[in-house]
């Protein structure tokens, strides 16, 4: 019997064990045929489904007595109303699923396992997560084959998450994205802020309240771009919100990514490559305040500045504005100080110049006065005294004094000239020029012939030149 025939018969409701006889039987009613067949074959190799499945169950129960640790990936996870957790576990090779089974964590076990798992990993069980489970193989005649999960090893998942995170970081580094956003300059005055957050999150309220009630009275303007901040939709939702901000990047100074107040788990989206890459490439500085206790997420790492909580982000922004105001106040102080100093210096210089001028003026005046006094003294004793007395009270005293001084000097000058003339006449040169000469003996000029014997050699100086002569004779008469 071919496979096709077999299938055909199955479809017509004929048991395979029904032998060749039942073949090619024409158009009679099926019901009648089946009744006939049952009557005909007393020992049908037929069993009830429950029997078959019961047998399968006993085989499975016998073979898989013990629980065993199994590594698998969660393909699907859902909770029912009674608190049972239903999963689909798979193993993949690339994109291809090479094994799949249903699994259950009964509510009683789930409560404690889930709490323990979340505490350790900071995550809830979710699609795509790799888990190490202690499984019991069960077969139920209605529900079929499944794994009953008795325990869950969070350290395996943590290791897997860490490995994935490491790979993401390595990829971002390789692609030059890891420090890209950090390369942007923070705005000089961060006053226009795009907020990506969930409007209902406590963290968002903390952030806006802190900014609004800043102690310096700075004005801030912010606009919310709402997004789901945790869970499976978060990655897409945050990405979409960022896209909206990016479209109007020009009117904002920076973007903040804040959440908090919600659950501390299921923040996996902040480790995702695509969200991190989007943050890294963002045209404005991105400040995060994701508000979790775990290690830095990948989004934190690529952000321009990572703050721990939304309140910290607000404080960071306020401090930025404060820095600018400090610069202003510093400028203000220095303008005041230096202007004051410059003016003081100018005043000082002026005072000094004035003092200097006064000193010099006094000195000059003093000298003039002293000269005048001296002149006056001399003049009162001189023949000009009368003149002086006459003009004593007149305003032209100085003029008169000058005149008197001039006259005195002039007179003195005339006297000097005469004296000089006299002195000039006394100069021997002038005498020699007229034909006189000087005869000397042994360097002393001779004024007498007395004692000068024949043969004495004398020296005579003329107006021009000199001669020596030997005395022939001498006499004592007048020349």
């Amino acid at each position, binding site marked *: 019997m071919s496979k096709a025939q077999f299938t055909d018969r199955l479809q017509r409701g004929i048991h395979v064990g029904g032998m060749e006889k039942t073949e090619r039987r024409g158009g009679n009613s099926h019901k009648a045929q089946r009744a006939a067949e049952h009557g005909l074959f007393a020992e049908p190799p037929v069993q009830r489904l429950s029997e078959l499945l019961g047998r399968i169950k006993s085989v499975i129960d016998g073979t898989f007595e013990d629980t065993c640790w199994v590594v698998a990936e969660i393909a699907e996870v859902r909770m029912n109303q009674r608190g049972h957790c239903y999963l689909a576990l798979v193993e993949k090779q690339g994109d291809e699923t090479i094994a799949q089974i249903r699994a259950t964590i009964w509510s009683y076990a789930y409560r404690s396992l889930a709490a323990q798992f979340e505490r350790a990993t900071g995550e809830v069980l979710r699609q795509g997560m790799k888990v190490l489970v202690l499984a019991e193989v069960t077969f139920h005649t209605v529900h079929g084959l499944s794994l009953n999960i008795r325990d869950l090893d969070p350290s395996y998942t943590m290791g897997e998450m860490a490995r994935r995170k490491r790979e993401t970081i390595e990829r971002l580094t390789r692609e030059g994205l890891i420090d890209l956003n950090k390369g942007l300059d923070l705005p000089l005055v961060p006053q*226009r802020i795009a907020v990506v957050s969930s409007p209902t999150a406590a963290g968002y309220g903390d952030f806006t309240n802190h900014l609004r009630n800043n102690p310096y*009275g700075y*004005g801030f303007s912010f606009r919310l771009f*709402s997004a789901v901040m945790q869970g499976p939709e978060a990655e897409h939702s945050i990405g979409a919100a960022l896209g909206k901000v990016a479209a109007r990047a*020009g*009117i904002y100074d920076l973007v903040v990514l804040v959440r908090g107040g919600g659950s501390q788990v299921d923040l996996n989206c902040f480790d995702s490559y695509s969200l991190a890459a989007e943050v890294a490439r963002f045209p404005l500085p991105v400040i995060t305040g994701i508000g979790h206790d775990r290690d830095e997420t990948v989004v934190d790492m690529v952000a321009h500045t990572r703050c721990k909580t939304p309140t910290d982000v607000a404080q960071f922004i306020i401090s930025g504005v404060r820095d600018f105001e400090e610069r202003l106040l510093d400028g203000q102080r220095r*303008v005041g100080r230096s202007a004051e100093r410059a003016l003081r210096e100018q005043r000082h210089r002026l005072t000094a110049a004035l003092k200097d001028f006064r000193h010099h003026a006094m000195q000059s005046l003093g000298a003039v006065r002293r000269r005048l006094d001296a002149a006056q003294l001399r003049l009162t004793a001189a023949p000009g005294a009368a003149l002086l007395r006459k003009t004593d009270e007149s305003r032209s005293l100085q003029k008169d004094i000058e005149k008197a001084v001039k006259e005195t000097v002039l007179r003195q000058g005339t006297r000097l000239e005469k004296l000089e003339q006299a002195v000039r006449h006394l100069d021997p040169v002038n005498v020699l020029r007229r034909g006189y000469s000087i005869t000397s003996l042994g360097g002393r000029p001779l004024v007498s012939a007395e004692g000068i014997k024949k043969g004495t050699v004398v020296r005579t100086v003329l107006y021009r030149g000199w001669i020596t002569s030997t005395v022939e004779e001498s006499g004592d008469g007048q020349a």
Partner: protein
Amino acid sequence: MGKRETGYKEAIEEIERIVAELEAENIDVDVIAEKVKRATHLITVCKNKLKGAEEQVQKALEELNQQDRGDDEPF
């Protein structure tokens, strides 16, 4: 960055330039008053912007929001 940013940047740069000039040894006494006046003006403008930006910018944002109202709430 937008227009306002440039305003702050230019203002603080001019203020700091004036300060440097005033702190130089041989500033002309005639220009001191003028420089001080200019610096004080700039400082006042900046301070007012720091404190009052909300109303100004909020207004600008509201105008913008009216042009394209998204699902997100301006406030």
